[in-house]
């Protein structure tokens, strides 16, 4: 009995050791969890960009404004961490409101003017983010009361109340696109190759370019549908609101561009790996890594600076930012333009890479 068990043990272990690639990936996974997961999620949020302004008519800066701003700038949530706020001074409330709706700042505080010093301090808040609005509110309250001001604070959540389910739900749309493609599409492609189905194409008059077009096309539609279904779930179950037809089509555009980019990337990855196991280990790593650093779960503000560069190159982060801007904040092309450009660059690069590496496996 034991002999058989040992034989199986030896065989499994031999295979495990004979593939250094999988060995490394097996170790890389928990290390990534430790470093990235630990840092990207639940990190201390600091450096929230906010604006300050003094109410019209503007005569001189009031002591309340000066001490209030000073207090905000120097407010630390935790003593050994950087300041909670990065404060920008505005001179016109309209400009501040514009900056808030463009997402350049997460909130702005309006202090009363000299002629009506007893009026409320008004706080306008981007309520679409997770954790950040609550932090701003408690931070501003603490900073203001800390200097002995008695004016009450009037809070305006400019996007109303947004549940975590809605916040997270939008991130899941992108996650659905990535997971469907990486696990479903890529593995199916490798299995087709192992089964000789791809080679079967080559003895038919079908052109190489048609094979590539068909493969990327079907994957894109599949990914798009996955994202679209989660979008519908968000609308009907999580209760997100799509404000206009334009918004709806903008969402579809972002979904499509993300889908074609991710599909092409997966086609190129799947072309490079001959075994399902190797591919899976790499893709599981990629998938989790991109998702965790995308801001889908937790605001990217909470990430340490050494990890921030990932947001810049993570297409998933752009897709999520674009979708949240459209769905949760009703922002238009002026805000998501940069995301769209990033997605176009990503998709174009991925398509090129996908075509090149897939073509190589075809030749």
């Amino acid at each position, binding site marked *: 009995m034991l002999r058989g068990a040992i034989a199986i043990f030896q065989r499994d272990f031999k295979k495990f050791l004979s593939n250094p690639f999988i060995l490394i990936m097996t170790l890389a996974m928990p290390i990534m969890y430790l470093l990235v997961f630990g840092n990207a999620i639940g990190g201390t949020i600091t450096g929230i960009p906010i604006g300050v302004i003094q109410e019209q008519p503007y005569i001189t800066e009031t002591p309340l404004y000066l001490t209030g701003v000073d207090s905000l700038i120097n407010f630390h949530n935790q003593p050994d961490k950087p300041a909670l706020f990065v404060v920008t001074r505005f001179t016109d409330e309209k400009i501040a409101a514009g900056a808030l709706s463009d997402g350049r700042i997460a909130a702005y505080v309006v202090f009363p003017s000299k002629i009506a010093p007893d009026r409320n301090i008004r706080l306008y808040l981007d309520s679409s983010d997770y954790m950040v609005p609550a932090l701003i509110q408690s931070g501003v309250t603490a900073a203001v009361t800390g200097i002995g001001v008695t004016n009450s604070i009037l809070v305006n959540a400019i996007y109303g109340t947004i549940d975590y389910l809605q916040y997270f739900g939008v991130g899941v749309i992108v996650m659905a696109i990535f997971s469907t493609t990486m696990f479903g599409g890529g593995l199916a492609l490798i299995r087709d190759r192992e*089964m*000789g*189905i791809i*080679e*079967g*194409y*080559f*003895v*038919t*008059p*079908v*052109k190489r370019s048609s094979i590539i077009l068909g493969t990327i096309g079907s994957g894109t539609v599949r990914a798009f549908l996955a994202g679209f279904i989660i979008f519908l779930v968000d609308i009907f179950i999580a209760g997100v609101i799509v404000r206009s037809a334009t918004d709806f089509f903008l969402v579809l555009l972002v979904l499509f561009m993300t889908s074609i980019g991710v599909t092409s990337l997966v086609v190129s990855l799947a072309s490079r790996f001959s075994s399902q196991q190797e591919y899976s280990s790499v893709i599981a790593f990629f998938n989790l890594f991109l998702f965790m650093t995308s801001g889908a779960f937790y605001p990217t503000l909470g990430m340490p600076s050494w990890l921030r560069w990932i947001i810049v190159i993570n297409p998933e982060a752009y897709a999520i930012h674009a979708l949240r801007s459209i769905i949760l904040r009703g922002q238009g092309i002026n805000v998501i333009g940069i995301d769209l450009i990033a997605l176009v660059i990503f998709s174009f690069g991925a398509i090129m890479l996908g075509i090149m590496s897939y073509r190589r496996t075809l030749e």
Partner: protein
Amino acid sequence: MDSCMAQTWDRIIGRIISSGRMYDAILKAIMGETPRDVVARQTVAAPDDTIIRIEHLTKTFCGRRTVTAVNDVTFDVKRGEIFGLLGPNGAGKSTLIRILTTLMKPTSGTAFLDNYEVTRDDERVRSIIGVCPQNSTLDIELTAYDNLAFYGKLVNVEESLLDTRIWELLAMTELTDRAHSKVATLSGGMRRKLEIVRAFIHHPLILFLDEPTIGLDPEARHEVWQQISMLNTEHTTIILTTHYMDEAEKLCERIAFIDQGRLISLDTPENLKRVMPAGELFELGYDTFNDGVLPVIRSHELVISVEQKEGKIQIAAQNGSNLLPTLITDFSRFGMTATSVSIRVPSLEDVFLYLTGKKFGHNDADVIDPKKRFS
């Protein structure tokens, strides 16, 4: 190593030339024919009854060990025949098929299929061939019908004819009632038949069958054979690779013996058997063995070859029945007793053995001896 270098060069030059191909494609779009086409047509005037012409085809694989899988092979295949490529595992049959079906580029030499050159006109070659590869490429998650429909579209069967054609093929394979079953639920024999007719869905001029009956039970093999003969009556040339001698003997009009990448012999099964000078083959079993007997047996006029193997003496001789008493006498002269005697007419396997001096499938454990299966 030289040929490997050449191969690398070819690849680099191929890249450069492929840009020339694009130029050709543009020319073709404008003029309908490129100068290269004209040259190709003029240089390839083959006799009408020849459908495949293979000229000095060589394929070398470079790697840790350089392997010449196909070594300077030249032969023709006639229109409408069932042509067998016969040889042991690793003889180079599949490589040859892969070159002819444009899956692989030859290292040197060339081949023409219906006057299209395999490397230059690969797209046109692909439109006139049907291929049933050695390993199944059916999608087992799709139904039989869907597999045929999918393939039919890949090979440009007209949409309006496709459905009729699929049912025709399903009827041919007696799979009509299983049309909407997933291929995963079909038996090995059914899958094989389905795959063979799939390759035939667009009435190709040439049908390549790479080991069509490998791993099938005797009954399924017979059905596949019937099907192959049936397809041949539709004026399709069939190229068949196999390492089953009986299969080749039964189906093929002409057979090419291939071993270690070389063409050893090519002829009809009857003529191939005639190559063997021996009329009959003897196997004499013995209890004790005495070395002295072999030269004595060899010295007889009618004896062609003598071999001692696994407790038996194998003798190839003309007019063996007359020789038998003499052999028995020889045995007793050396104090040996014949424990068993068998005489048989040579099969293709014997011819192959005679030509190559080796046994089939020596380095392959799963080779089934067809004689054992069909005894």
